[in-house]
């Protein structure tokens, strides 16, 4: 048949829940085969089965016409399968080189053969134009380079079939182009790639064929040439999908927060701020565009009170300078925060959904007697039920842990909590990273609704499309500096792109 891989009737349950049910997919040499599906559709699960991390509860895997049992990632490597995981699988404290050669078994010697390995890695780097600083600690690398390390790990082990699980979720457009170049070079050599992404633009651009998964089942496999973006989107969510277009508003002059010549560790290129002046107005969305690692994190931390500027002033809505930089002070002044890392910063994963929804309000009279002296558990639960329905949080009960939710639903919990407090300033950092089109749409709608209600929104995103789509004004951040501020209505895309590259 010429197929490199066939997965037939694969099923995988977690407890009594089927993450995959009778999934079928076949992959040919020299193609990019895209898996498309909503959050929780079972894409990663299927791939984890293929790579030997999970053991399937049913079905079979055929490689090159022969049935194989992939009982561990090691076996997968032997069959020439390699995977770049959705969440990076890197040892942050080790160098790029160490990460790449880790666990590799090509030498019989128990000793490390760094020089040999370095040479073969260099060769691969040259062949595909992968640029990696091998002696840098992964923790000190940019996200893009980390991803290249991930790809190198797979190539170094001689994979014929590469699985890329949402590789672009964290990349800038420029880096995505670089990745696509590498992918093209790989398939030109006859290797096969399974690609997962929620960004339809990318899917349309790079795929040869697309398999759509829905609720753990494979729906259809289509040649890209025979389909359209709309058809794929409809198949994926199981109903007609319409993407909203938001009206841009012109800026009011009521300032919610203003940074005046603010600096924070200006000597650091990636992770500092240099002489930043920026005003966020009520009733507008100010989008911050820029390549990840150019000061987004300190900017977000600064406007949420997590860090204190080293020089410069921060002025509140009434024109008074803010002196106390603590999250609670900012929250008290009306801050809503959708933080960068929902698991680490947004939610207490081991607490229930209900508890996460009232996280900041346990002392309020609504949820406790005597200013926090006795929690009203039933009020909390009722409130959670209401928010759950309003925000379409999909869960079996508000008493299940937040950790057990999918990313999209976790994000909805955070959004519900933050918006229920009617913030005056909403800071949203990468709010839709990794979310499917449906969830993304929902989050976007909510953010725009807040703006329309008069809230000032600071949107920080590495997704340029998202910034363009939502922002009323666009500021560009490069190496900790604001390169310029641009209008959101018919934005000068070319100029902005250049500014993002520091030109």
């Amino acid at each position, binding site marked *: 048949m010429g197929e490199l891989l066939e997965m037939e009737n694969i099923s995988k349950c*977690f407890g009594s829940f089927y993450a995959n049910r009778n999934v079928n997919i076949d992959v040919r040499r020299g193609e990019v085969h895209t898996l498309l599906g909503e959050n929780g559709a079972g894409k990663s699960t299927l791939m984890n089965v293929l*790579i030997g*991390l*999970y053991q399937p509860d049913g079905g079979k895997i055929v490689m090159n016409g022969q049935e194989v049992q992939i009982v*561990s*990632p*090691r076996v*997968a*490597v032997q069959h020439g399968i390699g*995977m770049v*995981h959705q*969440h*990076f*699988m*890197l*040892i*942050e*404290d*080790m160098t790029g080189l*160490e990460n790449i*050669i*880790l*666990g*590799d*078994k090509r*030498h019989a*010697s*128990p*000793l*490390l053969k760094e020089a040999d390995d370095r040479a073969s890695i260099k060769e691969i780097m040259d062949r595909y134009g992968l640029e990696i600083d091998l002696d840098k600690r992964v923790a000190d690398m940019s996200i893009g380079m980390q991803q290249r390390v991930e790809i190198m*790990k797979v190539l170094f082990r001689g994979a014929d079939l590469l699985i890329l699980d949402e590789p672009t979720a964290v990349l800038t457009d420029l880096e995505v182009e670089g990745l696509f170049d590498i992918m093209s070079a790989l398939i030109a050599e006859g290797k096969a790639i399974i690609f997962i992404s929620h960004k339809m633009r990318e899917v349309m651009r790079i795929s040869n064929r697309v398999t759509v998964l829905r609720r753990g089942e494979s729906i259809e496999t289509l040649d890209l040439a025979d389909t359209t973006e709309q058809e794929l989107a409809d198949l994926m969510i199981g109903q007609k999908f319409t993407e909203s277009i938001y009206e841009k508003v012109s800026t009011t002059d009521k300032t919610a927060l203003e940074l005046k010549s603010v600096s924070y560790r200006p000597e650091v290129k990636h992770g500092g701020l240099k002489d930043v002046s920026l005003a966020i107005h009520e009733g507008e969305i100010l989008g911050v565009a820029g390549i990840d690692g150019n000061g987004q994190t300190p900017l977000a931390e600064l406007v949420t009170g997590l860090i204190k500027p080293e020089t410069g002033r921060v002025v509140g809505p009434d024109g008074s300078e803010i002196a106390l930089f603590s999250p609670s002070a900012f929250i008290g002044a009306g801050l809503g925060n959708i933080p960068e890392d929902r698991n680490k910063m947004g939610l207490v994963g081991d607490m229930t959904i209900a508890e996460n929804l009232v996280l900041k309000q346990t002392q309020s009279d609504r949820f406790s007697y005597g200013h926090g002296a006795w929690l009203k558990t039933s009020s909390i639960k009722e409130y959670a039920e209401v928010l759950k329905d309003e925000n379409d949080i999909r869960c079996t009960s508000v008493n299940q842990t937040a950790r057990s939710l999918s990313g999209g639903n976790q994000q909805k919990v955070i959004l519900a909590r933050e918006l229920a407090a009617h913030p005056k300033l909403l800071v949203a950092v990468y709010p839709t990273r990794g979310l499917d089109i449906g969830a993304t749409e929902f989050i976007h709608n909510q953010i725009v609704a807040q703006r329309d209600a008069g809230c000032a929104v600071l949107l920080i995103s590495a997704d340029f499309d998202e910034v363009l789509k939502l922002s009323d004004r666009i500021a560009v951040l490069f190496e900790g500096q604001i390169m310029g501020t641009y209008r959101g209505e018919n934005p000068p895309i070319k100029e902005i792109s250049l500014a993002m590259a520091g030109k």
Partner: protein
Amino acid sequence: MDFFATLPTILRATTMGAVPILLAALGEVFSERAGLVNIGLEGIMGIGAFVAFAVGKLTGNLWLGLLAGMLAGMLVNLLYAFCTVTLCADQVVTGMAINVLVPAIALFGYNLFVGSNSANATGEQMASLSIPGLASMPYVGDAFFAQTPLAYLAFIMVPLVSLFFKRFRLGLSFRSVGENPHASETLGINVVRVKYAACIVCGALAAAGGAFLTLCYTPIYTDGIVMGRGFIALATVIFGRWSAVGALGASLLFGFFDGLNVALQAQFQAAPVMFFKMIPYLVTIIALIFFGSKHAGPKANGQPYLREQR
């Protein structure tokens, strides 16, 4: 007191005191590098001390005693491994349970072994081995070059362990498992096997540290003979920043201040000596304050690992 007159004895006490801690700490380095914090060192040292004592006495062969002790340590730590690695139980509590259970087993064994026959209560001692020439050096000669073979072995272990983590494929795998087991697994490293291996090595080394107490220090076993050395070993691993050389430095430091404590006790006899006894512990804390960086060690240290869980 004349510090320089007592120095050779303090130094001798330093090395004698450092060796058992060092051995246990080296074991703990393996364990923590693979992501397992083992508070049960104390108990493992205890069983090592007893079994080495009993088998050494029974067979008259101290090396056999040492091996038996190490074997016992491995077995005990396999129990720890089963609970923490296979069952994903809490590491601190499991270690704590080891510390309650294992010394009790050792004491029980001792009761059976010695019975009321006090002739069984005193065992054999390893003879020390002077290195000709070096042993007669002033100050350090007696302390460093007139040791028991087991002590030399302990010191030789330090560069070997260092080398293992720096230059060996398996050493790199150990480290990766402690940093990010999920990533290690995706690279074909068998995380569970590495963790078990770490536990076996840790059990053997910690038990050897215990065996040193009965084979090289004093020829008797008593309940509580480990006297908190297992906990000190834990501290030296942190203080030594999870490296073998660091652990050596930290255990020598502790040994030195423990030696100083005894020297002070010996010379200032009428003073409230309990304040001298605090010295090694105070120094450990102070040393940690000044040199124990915020570096928290292997990232996944102390966390359970299940393959099919994120």
